[in-house]
């Protein structure tokens, strides 16, 4: 067949510089693949969209949406929570968040903020998994300051080429232990035993999986803060919640109601999977890394960012519709989601305040049991959609469904609190939170960073 004969002839690139598993610095790779490297470097850029994009100084979401401080009262996220920006910033931004500066955090944090596999290999004496477990248990500082035998820092770069590409073949691959274990559990839940992502994932699936290494919900299991993806029962919000309930896990106790809470972090992969595009087989990279013509070549745009900043490349290949119109469609979806978020936030705040009033009126924990149970449910669903970064675009109807349920539980919580003795009157107010915990319950937490 002519075509295959042609293909064998193909020389996709010449290697001017050797790169291997230890090349965490993207620069040398850039010599071999300048186009991808150049676009990768542009992730330092910033440009806003209506709900996303990025800024030079990342927007403080806590100020934009003050109710967040109430939702997360008593938790590190109520100290500092900003708009995400480009990949090049990921390590610096973790270094400087008040969540790290003011609260103890584990080494597990670095799993998704740096090109860290080499560090795992070093710590585990060649065994990445073993190293992963040990680094998870370290303090953030220990981990951040790891060096190799030559004394060179091992955690020196944000996620880079080696994290998604096989240095030998440039083939896509996943490297994150958290994901490799998580996806196996997920497949098992779907009835597929002994799933090996390296062996079983298609190239097209990898165009999503490489992102799902990090853009997912997670928690730290046990006192040795093992990074874990809670997918044992599936990845729908209820399935994850059921898993947490079963293992009786909570991230923190709420600063106002003392309910055992769950924190949802960037469940992009989870929510995307429930959306229309996922059903249609559209991968993360299809929209966030569209191909571009560079000279006589098509190159995947490694300037990963909001697709709404370049609808032409990101959407129009599939949707032959004028740019403004596509942008408008996305905005309609996002505006509706925002409207429901505001509604759910008002309901949540009302509930939290009603529970506070009930407590002030002397309601017992036992009388408040139902209200506290509802608080956990309502917050999980609102947080799940709010902390997901597409403002509902990845899964419009599913996001609305979760917010509807959140509203239902919050409003039931208000009634339950009133029944438990809360004074009917009283306008919701942001109350001083109790001391803020780190991600790891302070008692067994490593000492704060000096």
């Amino acid at each position: 067949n002519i075509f295959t004969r042609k293909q064998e002839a193909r020389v996709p690139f010449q290697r001017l510089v050797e790169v291997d598993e230890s090349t965490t610095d993207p620069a040398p790779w850039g010599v071999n693949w300048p186009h991808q490297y150049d676009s990768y470097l542009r992730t330092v850029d910033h440009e806003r969209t209506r709900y996303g994009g990025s800024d030079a100084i990342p927007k403080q979401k806590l100020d934009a949406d003050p109710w967040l401080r109430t939702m997360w009262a008593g938790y590190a996220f109520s100290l500092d929570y900003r708009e995400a920006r480009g990949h090049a910033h990921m390590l610096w931004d973790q270094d400087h968040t008040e969540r790290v500066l003011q609260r103890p955090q584990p080494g597990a944090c670095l799993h998704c903020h740096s090109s860290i596999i080499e560090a795992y290999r070093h710590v585990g004496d060649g065994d990445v998994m073993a190293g992963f477990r040990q680094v998870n248990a370290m303090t953030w500082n220990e981990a951040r300051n790891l060096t190799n035998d030559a004394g060179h820092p091992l955690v020196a770069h944000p996620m880079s080429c080696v994290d998604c590409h096989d240095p030998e073949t440039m083939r896509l691959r996943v490297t994150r232990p958290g994901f490799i274990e998580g996806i196996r559990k997920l497949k098992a839940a779907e009835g597929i035993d002994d799933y090996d992502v390296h062996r079983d994932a298609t190239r097209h699936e990898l165009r999503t999986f490489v992102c799902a290494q990090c853009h997912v919900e997670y928690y730290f299991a046990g006192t040795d803060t093992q990074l874990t993806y809670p997918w044992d029962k599936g990845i729908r919000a209820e399935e994850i919640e059921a898993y947490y309930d079963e293992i009786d896990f909570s991230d923190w106790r709420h600063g106002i109601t003392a309910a055992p809470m769950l924190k949802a972090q960037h469940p992009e992969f989870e929510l995307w999977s429930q959306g229309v595009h996922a059903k249609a087989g559209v991968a993360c990279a299809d929209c966030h890394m569209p191909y571009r013509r560079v000279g006589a070549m098509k190159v995947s745009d490694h300037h990963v960012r909001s697709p709404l900043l370049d609808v032409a490349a990101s959407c129009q290949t599939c949707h032959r519709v004028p740019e403004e119109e596509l942008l408008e469609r996305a905005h309609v979806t996002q505006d509706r989601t925002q409207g429901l978020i505001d509604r759910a936030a008002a309901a949540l705040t009302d509930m939290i305040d009603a529970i506070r009033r009930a407590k002030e009126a002397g309601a017992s924990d036992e009388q408040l049991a139902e209200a506290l149970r509802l608080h956990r449910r309502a917050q999980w669903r609102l947080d799940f959609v709010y902390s997901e970064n597409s403002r509902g675009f990845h899964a419009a109807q599913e996001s609305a469904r979760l917010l509807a349920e959140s509203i239902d539980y919050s409003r039931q919580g208000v009634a339950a609190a009133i029944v438990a003795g809360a004074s009917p009157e009283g306008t919701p107010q942001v109350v001083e939170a109790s001391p803020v915990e780190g991600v790891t319950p302070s008692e067994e937490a490593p000492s704060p960073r000096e």
Partner: protein
Amino acid sequence: MKKRIWGTAAIGCSVLLGSFVGAGSYTFHYGEGFSYFRKDPASCVNCHIMQPHYDTWLKSSHHAVANCIDCHLPHEFPHDFIAKAENGWNHSWAFTFDDFPEPIRMTARNRRTLEDNCKACHGPLTDQMLADHHRPDERGAVSCLHCHSNVGHTAPPR
């Protein structure tokens, strides 16, 4: 059934095909080859059933650069093509109609042919995407149509 259609299609297009033999490479298309093709696709539209595809092709980004057979028939000639033609010759037009599902959907095999033709014309541009370092098996496959299903036919808004 399929073979029959292809056969008839083949006949419909045989005039053009003569000029096509041995000229499989994309340089030919990018070159003076164009003039030939502008005439052609009428042969396909001998069948009203192909009308919508013809009309949507006319409006497509490719109408000036590629015609039906460039995309839909194997580029390697003459062998298996002649076979198809002979095969089709034995059947009268009448039989060609009315027992196929509509809307017409491409067979898996023809879809592969189609994608091979994309790659044949757009070789250099897509070398990196198609470099054989990707998994050689099905799992490594990339589908042009996943993103470009509307290049040949201005499909409905989508």
